Every structure is written in C-alpha cells, then in structure tokens.
C-alpha cells in the first residue's frame, strides 16, 4: 500500500512516518528549543556586559568630600568663606571644574551643587547662601525613579570658625551622567 502522506514543516514530525528513529531528533522542534536556549543566553550576556558601571554614588560622595575639605582647614572654616566674593569664586577656591565630555548632547550641564552655611543653633539664619553652581534643573528630578534620573545626596556637618562660633554647613549634590552610568 503506497499511501502518500502530506507533511507539513510545522507538524510534529517533518519527516514522513516511514522514517523512524532519527525522525524525532531531526524535527524542527529540537532546533526551536536550542534556538530559544541560545537566544536566552545571548540576551542575558548582552544585558550583563552591556550595562555600564554606575559610579554616580561614588562620584557624588567624592564631590561632597572635596567641598567639605575645601571649606574646612585644620578643623576651622576657612576665612574665604566670609569674604563677599566667595560665591562668585567658589569653583575656583575649591578647584572644581564642572565641564564634561560633549557626547550624548551634554553641554556641561551634568552637575548641580548647592551650599549653605547657617548658624548652628538656629539653622534658619544663613551666613552664606544657599547658593548653587551647575544645572539647577537637576535639583527637582531627584525624587523620581533613580535609574533614569540624577543621583542626589545631601549631607551636613558641624563646624566652627577661629572665634569658636558654631555653624552648620549643608551641601546638596545632584549628578546626572545617566547615559554613561545607566542603561
């Protein structure tokens, strides 16, 4: 009996039924499975190695440390803080440069820093500031989801001047650089 079988590539067995044994192994389903496994491995590898190192937390903390070191010398607030031109010369006094690479459409707008120095007892009485440097638009984006928004940290510390007058220094930093740290 020569029964002609119609076979479909998408059927369970692509090969005619009169070929037994290897038919099952060579069916397209085996290759579908290994393609799925391979695709999963490729996807996971690309995801792992394609994700950049996120160093924004480290960088933000380093910036706050640098500003703190700049404002306080031998345990006392530096004299320049009390000079009128401190705000305008702040970046120069603290050796800061907020320029960044021109890639990803950045225009030196990836940093924001806000500084205030108030009396320690009544922190609503400001001696300096609050004043800011950098891109002020970064300030309001902090509360949203971290991954797609700037990384923000605020830290404060107690300090005195040479006449032992007490102050509270507050530093707020917001750092974007999202394209190079998050994907």
């Amino acid at each position, binding site marked *: 009996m020569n029964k002609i079988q119609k076979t479909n590539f998408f059927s369970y067995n692509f090969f005619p039924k009169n*070929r037994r*044994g*290897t038919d099952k*192994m*060579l069916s397209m389903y085996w*290759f579908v499975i*290994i393609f799925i496994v*391979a695709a999963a*491995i*490729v996807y996971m*590898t*690309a995801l792992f*190695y394609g994700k*950049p*190192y996120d*160093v924004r937390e*480290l*960088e933000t903390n*380093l*910036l706050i*440390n*640098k500003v703190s070191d700049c404002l306080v010398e031998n345990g006392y607030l530096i004299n320049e803080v009390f000079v009128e031109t401190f705000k305008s010369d702040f*970046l120069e006094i603290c*050796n*800061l*440069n*907020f*320029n*960044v*690479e021109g*890639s990803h459409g950045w225009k030196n707008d*990836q*940093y924001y820093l806000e500084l205030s120095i108030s009396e320690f007892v009544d922190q609503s009485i400001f001696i300096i500031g609050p004043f800011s440097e950098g891109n002020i638009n970064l300030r309001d984006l902090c509360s949203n989801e971290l991954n797609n928004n700037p990384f923000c940290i605020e830290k404060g510390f107690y300090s005195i001047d040479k006449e032992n007058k007490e102050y509270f220094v507050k530093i707020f930093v917001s750092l974007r650089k999202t394209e*190079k740290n998050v994907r």
Partner: protein
Amino acid sequence: MLKKNKRANILTENVVFIILNVVFLTILVVFLFVKVSDGAVFEEKYSKQIALMIDSAQPGMQISLEVKDAVDHAESGWLRNNFHEAFVVEDNLVKVKLSSKGGYSYSFFNDVYPVLEFYPDNEEVVITIPKENE
C-alpha cells in the same frame, strides 16, 4: 539492497544532526568568549576608575594603578605601537583606548592637571597630581 540504503540514510541523518549541534554550540561559545574578553568593558572600567582616583586625589600625590586586564584584552599589535595613546588625559577627561576602533572617556571634576604615564611592560599606569604651585 533497500535495507542497506535505509541504514546509510539513518547514519547520514545522525551525522548531520551531530554536526549541526556542534556548529551551533561552537558559535554560542565563541560569542560568549568574544563578549567576555571584549576590551570595551575594560576601557570603560579603567577610564571611570582613573577619573574617580583623580577626583579623590590631593595635589602632590602619585598613584600607581595595575592595568593587567587592560593589557591582556587590548588589541596587542595596536597597543604595542600606540601605547602612548592608550591612557590619556585631555582637559578634564580621562580617555582609555585599547584598540584601533575603540575608546572611552569619562570626566572628572577635580580642577587639576594630572599626568598619566603608561608602562605596558610593567602593566601599570602612574597618575601624578602636580602640586598647586607647579
């Protein structure tokens, strides 16, 4: 005669099946190997690491950084002839380039003028932060 043909057919199918699987797995392993040993990952790693080191450094400091991974995964012929371009500071950007096509840069906020010296034989980079009056 017919039986013999059938056996040969089964053997051929087995061989084809095994070859296809081996080829497939080989391609997968090669992909993983290329991805893992890709120099671009190390360009990013070292440019960010050096930028953060410069940010945290004080004037007058000299820092030695081992860059064995970078040397191992660099395009060897290119690195041998262009080692002076591998680790560079321009303005306030650290640029790391380990192959003729690659390259990654990252900025630092510390307003200093560091000097990077790369010693491929010792697999190290020496970062020198000049004193303020230098």
